């Protein structure tokens, strides 16, 4: 075995590879050694802080951690790693915000069903896809009923929602509602009808020309001034509308880029065959344009997920907002490393999986048919 591993030709290949990629000159050799040093220094220290010297539910003495004073690293600063107890003790808040604990099972059902509803949208070779699509369409109503309440279920005001629930609600709903809306905007911007064209251009440029925070403030503070007295729009809904508009404007521009790449001959051929504008658009132009825009669309979608954290300035508690609330708690204050690391990990998982999905999609569409 060892002999096989040390097979001379293998060694030579490895040696050549090292020489070519890492030690091709004095300069690159120095950089390689420097990077190696950094990696060897950071990774063990990082893992140590995150896991090996970290407290989870119990501290180094085996006591259950109930507030910051029990954390090993608070007792002996510099000698112990993270104190994850802040996340464990406040787990419900991180996941559901101030949702009543007795009703949390409703959110869990929605969390569990969400992948099922998204599956047929994201993958085409899913078992029972046709049946699942129906479920996807009724899922928003089921989710609304479960989360908000209705006949038979206690009503839970959206002001009690928070944490990952709000992040996912704003992010996923924002993206999914914004997507069809952005297609219409992109088509509208290229329309020959002046009214439709100007509405699309004005909408896109106004939204894109303003920071998301401004739109959130506008929805939160200015909008009620324009609405009749006693007519109150839910705070979370305002945030959702702002996020959706913002996402739609950006995605519309991504899709417009794809539309511009489709040769005019495609539309001409479709029209010459007698297909109507909408038939040509849906059957011929959009499938090709969307394929081209996938990286840009996913880029916007990842942006939307991350931007959900801005809603904390209008009084909504998304994952980051809940984290900051935890830090404001006298019992847990100054454990900001743990809170931010945890929030970062969750965001990273969400965004990284989206980016992986987009790579998968690009690859799949490329191999499906060679253009």
């Amino acid at each position, binding site marked *: 075995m060892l002999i096989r591993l040390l097979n001379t030709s293998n060694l030579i290949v490895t040696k050549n590879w090292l020489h070519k990629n890492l030690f091709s000159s004095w300069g690159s050799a120095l950089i390689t050694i420097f990077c190696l040093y950094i990696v060897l220094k950071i990774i063990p220290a990082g893992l140590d802080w995150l896991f090996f010297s970290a407290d989870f539910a119990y501290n180094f003495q085996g006591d259950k951690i109930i507030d910051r004073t029990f954390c090993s690293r608070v007792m002996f600063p510099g000698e112990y790693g993270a104190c994850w107890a802040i996340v464990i003790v406040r787990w419900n808040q991180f996941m559901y915000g101030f949702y009543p604990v007795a009703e949390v099972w409703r959110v869990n059902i929605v969390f569990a069903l969400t992948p099922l509803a998204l599956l047929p949208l994201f993958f085409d070779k899913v078992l029972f896809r046709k049946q699942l699509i129906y479920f996807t369409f009724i899922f928003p109503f089921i989710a609304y009923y479960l989360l908000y309440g209705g006949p038979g279920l206690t009503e839970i005001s959206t002001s009690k929602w928070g944490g990952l629930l709000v992040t996912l609600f704003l992010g996923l709903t924002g993206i999914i509602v914004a997507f069809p809306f952005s297609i219409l905007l992109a088509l509208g911007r290229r329309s020959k009808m002046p009214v439709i064209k100007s509405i699309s251009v004005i909408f896109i440029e106004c939204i894109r020309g303003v920071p998301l925070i401004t739109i959130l403030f506008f929805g939160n503070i200015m909008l009620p001034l324009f609405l009749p007295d006693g007519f109150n729009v839910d705070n979370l809904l305002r945030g959702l509308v702002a996020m959706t508009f913002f996402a739609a404007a950006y995605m519309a521009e991504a899709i417009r880029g794809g539309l511009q790449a489709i040769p005019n001959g495609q539309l001409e*051929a479709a029209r010459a*065959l*007698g*297909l109507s504008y909408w038939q040509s658009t849906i059957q*011929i132009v959009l499938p090709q344009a969307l394929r081209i825009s996938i990286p840009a669309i996913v880029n916007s979608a990842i942006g939307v997920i991350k931007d959900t954290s801005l809603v904390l300035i209008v009084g909504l508690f998304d994952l980051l907002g809940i984290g900051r609330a935890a830090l404001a708690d006298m019992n847990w204050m100054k454990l900001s490393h743990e809170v931010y690391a945890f929030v970062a990990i969750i965001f990273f998982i969400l965004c990284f999986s989206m980016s992986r999905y987009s790579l998968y999609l690009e690859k799949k569409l490329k191999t499906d*048919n060679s253009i």
Partner: protein
Amino acid sequence: MDSNTVISLEKVNKWYDDFHVLKDVDLSVTKGEKIVICGPSGSGKSTMIRCINRLEAHQKGNITVNGTELTNDLKNIDIIRKDVGMVFQQFNLFPHLSVLDNISLAPIWVKKTPKKEAEELAMRYLEKVKIPEQALKFPGQLSGGQQQRVAIARSLAMNPQIMLFDEPTSALDPEMIKEVLDVMVQLANEGMTMLVVTHEMGFAKTVADQMIFMDEGRIVEQASPTEFFTNPKSDRTKLFLSQILNH
């Protein structure tokens, strides 16, 4: 108007902004007639046939196809496009659809033919253009000549009464031109009404009933092929013919 007339253009004028592309073009095509249109680039020959199925709009004059006048009325445009098929220089096949789907798409969506029936129809036309074995491939996997034959099959699947060809062989490698022209000759022999913009003079001599020479937006000469090739009247036509026949 002759009851056999299927296409008539009367004093058709078209401008691109200030540029006068078509100047008082008159043309009448009877059922089953094959017309070959030639002329230098920029002479308006493509624009003229693209006006017939309203890919371009004319600004003055009348165009009537199968008794329906072309106006801004969308309903008329739809009626005419169902009767008129078109083949483009760049094929314009739909790259995201298989060959079979390219052909069956319009029957399914425009004529509401059931999918299975439309696919059988598509296979029949693929056999007609002699590439049934390519049905499940995508356009990008086919040679130029095969792609253009698929494009012809795609048009024919809508069962048009008139076929417009806009330089169908200009984008092809020389060795592929024949396979496309063969299909077009076969179509001509079956009695299809055809308007063909091409510089393939051999093809013109074989199938054309009328030759049309255009220059600077006008029809300069219209004659039978024998007359056109042996005894052209205008100097412009003579010059053009000497250039394309003796290169």
